[in-house]
């Protein structure tokens, strides 16, 4: 086991508002980690900094020992909280684009997964339902051999059956020594796939612990622990 992501004293402000306040967080390899907190607690800001969508000015973040940049983007696979593809693209165009953009993209596996999920590669993105568009995004994201996968709200507007499909894709695709960071409000859905949970509130990490520990110490499910913390 090694440290995949290191973050030390990360502060980020939008104007006067502190979105993140001295956040320190380390993620080990081979873990599935859930990040939970109310809207506006800083989850997406944190993810955007890790993925390089926002600039980590003070260089507080290291991924596989590197500052956020080209090298870290090559080992990190990210799905944003909104499906980012143009409506006019066909699924097959996106497969080609991912193959072109990422050396570690496995087009064959991606095509197989899409077929399993009954998505037709000749379809246009604009014609897909919300759930199917999300499945497409997750398949593309998870078909890379990345070290760190970061999924921001992967279940947005997705029905329960599709959520289970998406969870299966995640579990089936993530390489053994890679890690998965998932930010979601659907705690109950991801609870049984998590190794660790991070609770974040008003830009600060409340705690980062093993889910088994939380459950055995409190005798509560993670979802109940969340309700208690934030109610």
């Amino acid at each position: 086991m090694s440290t995949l992501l290191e973050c030390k004293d990360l502060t980020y402000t939008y104007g006067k508002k502190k979105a993140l306040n001295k956040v320190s967080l380390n993620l080990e390899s081979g873990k599935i980690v859930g990040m939970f907190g109310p809207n506006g607690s800083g989850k997406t800001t944190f993810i955007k900094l890790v993925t390089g969508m926002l600039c980590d000015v003070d260089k507080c973040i290291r991924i596989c020992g590197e500052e956020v940049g080209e090298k870290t983007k090559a080992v990190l696979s990210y799905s944003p909280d909104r499906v980012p593809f143009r409506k006019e693209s066909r699924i097959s165009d996106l497969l080609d684009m991912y193959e072109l953009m990422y050396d570690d993209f496995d087009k064959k596996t991606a095509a197989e997964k899409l077929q399993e999920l009954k998505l037709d590669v000749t379809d246009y993105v604009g014609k897909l339902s919300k759930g199917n568009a999300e499945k497409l995004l997750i398949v593309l994201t998870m078909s890379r051999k990345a070290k760190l996968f970061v999924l921001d709200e992967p279940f947005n507007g997705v029905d329960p059956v599709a959520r289970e499909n998406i969870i299966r894709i995640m579990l089936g695709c993530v390489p053994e020594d890679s890690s998965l960071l998932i930010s979601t409000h659907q705690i109950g859905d991801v609870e049984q796939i998590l190794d660790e949970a991070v609770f974040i509130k008003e830009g600060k990490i409340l705690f980062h612990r093993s889910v088994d520990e939380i459950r055995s110490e409190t005798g509560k499910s993670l979802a109940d622990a969340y309700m208690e913390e934030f109610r």
Partner: protein
Amino acid sequence: MAWNLDSDKPIFIQIVEKIESDIVSGKYAPGDKLPAVRELAVEAAVNPNTMQKAFGELENLGLVHTQRTSGRFVTEDRKLIDKTRKELAKKTAAEFLTRMEELGIDREEAIRLL
């Protein structure tokens, strides 16, 4: 279908119980090869590390053994399987009686209901 797991009991214990009962019921026969950790984790929709931990526990119990190159197998020790069956039955009976007690039904009345 994802396995039906309770949210307030450690998941790995529930997985151990599920596989124990699959062995006892003959879904996995003595000497059968078990699916790979990853495969079962995806089927159950649980964390692969948790599934690994459950397999470790099943190995400790002697119900499952690993052959280094060829995978994991169900024990051929039928005595052990019988013993496990009895233990699971006892546990289930105890749970039943506890539940009956909660309903205000004593042991004798519970037996009559059966």
